[in-house]
């Protein structure tokens, strides 16, 4: 029996955002857009959902007078991703045994 997977991370784009941030810890909106291939509107909506859940922090700043949106994983986000991955792993382990 495996634990239920976090429904917030069962969306392709949200999971991609979280996976990317697990490697780079912090990145800007445009890099996330390139890396995930998402549209700006969609990416923005999914980032807001992750932010509401407390998984990521969003900081709006400036770089050479251009607005820069930085996204960073929070401790709760790292924990949620690790739990999600551990649950996924236990699912495949159970499947292998079965």
């Amino acid at each position: 029996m495996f634990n239920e997977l976090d429904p917030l991370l069962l969306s392709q784009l949200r999971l991609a955002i979280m996976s990317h941030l697990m490697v780079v810890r912090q990145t800007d909106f445009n890099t996330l857009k390139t890396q995930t291939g998402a549209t700006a509107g969609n990416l923005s909506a999914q980032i807001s959902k992750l932010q509401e859940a407390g998984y990521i922090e969003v900081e709006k700043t400036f770089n050479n007078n251009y607005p820069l949106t930085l996204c960073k994983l929070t401790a709760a986000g790292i924990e949620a991703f690790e739990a999600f991955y551990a649950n996924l792993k236990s699912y495949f382990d159970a499947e292998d045994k079965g």
Partner: protein
Amino acid sequence: MENDEKILNPQESLRVIRETIDLAKNSIRENGFHFLLWGWLVVLACIADYYLDVVVQYPNHFLAWIAMAVIGLPTALIYEWRREKKDPSTFNTIRGWYGRVWLAFGISLFLVLVLTVRAQVSPVPYILVLVGFATFISGSLLRFAPLIFGAVVMWVAAIICMMLGYQEHLLVQALATVAGYLVPGYIMSAKARNKHV
């Protein structure tokens, strides 16, 4: 990425994680600045030390190395500070580890220098072993084979030093730095430029 609200099954979730992480890892690149900076400084310091010691017979020939540190350390720190300021998104886990490896190298290098001066032996072979160690880990973190090759060059040079005297050690170190540090540095720099165009 289409259909973002689609509920993923476990297989799809694992695929998304794997693909995204692979893509993120490949986006991590260094431009070789530090390898070129320190590579040239070490080569120049080796030649200067050799010239001052062997040709001019100046007793304080080691000043070449102090000059290297005085030029190199502020340049490297200012470069990193400006890079971080220019683009705060450049920080990532791999670069974090990369920085820690070279910090540990710096501390070890300082201790090796103190210990070898006290023991009155040539520090060069020990420095080459340490440089090889840090270069090997950097190459593994960045998945950059020329740096692994560079590490092997440093280790081979350390063995060659066993057969030579202190003054020749400096020439071996200069050659090893060109082959094991500057060559990978220039390849890295060329690759980073091509990706940015």
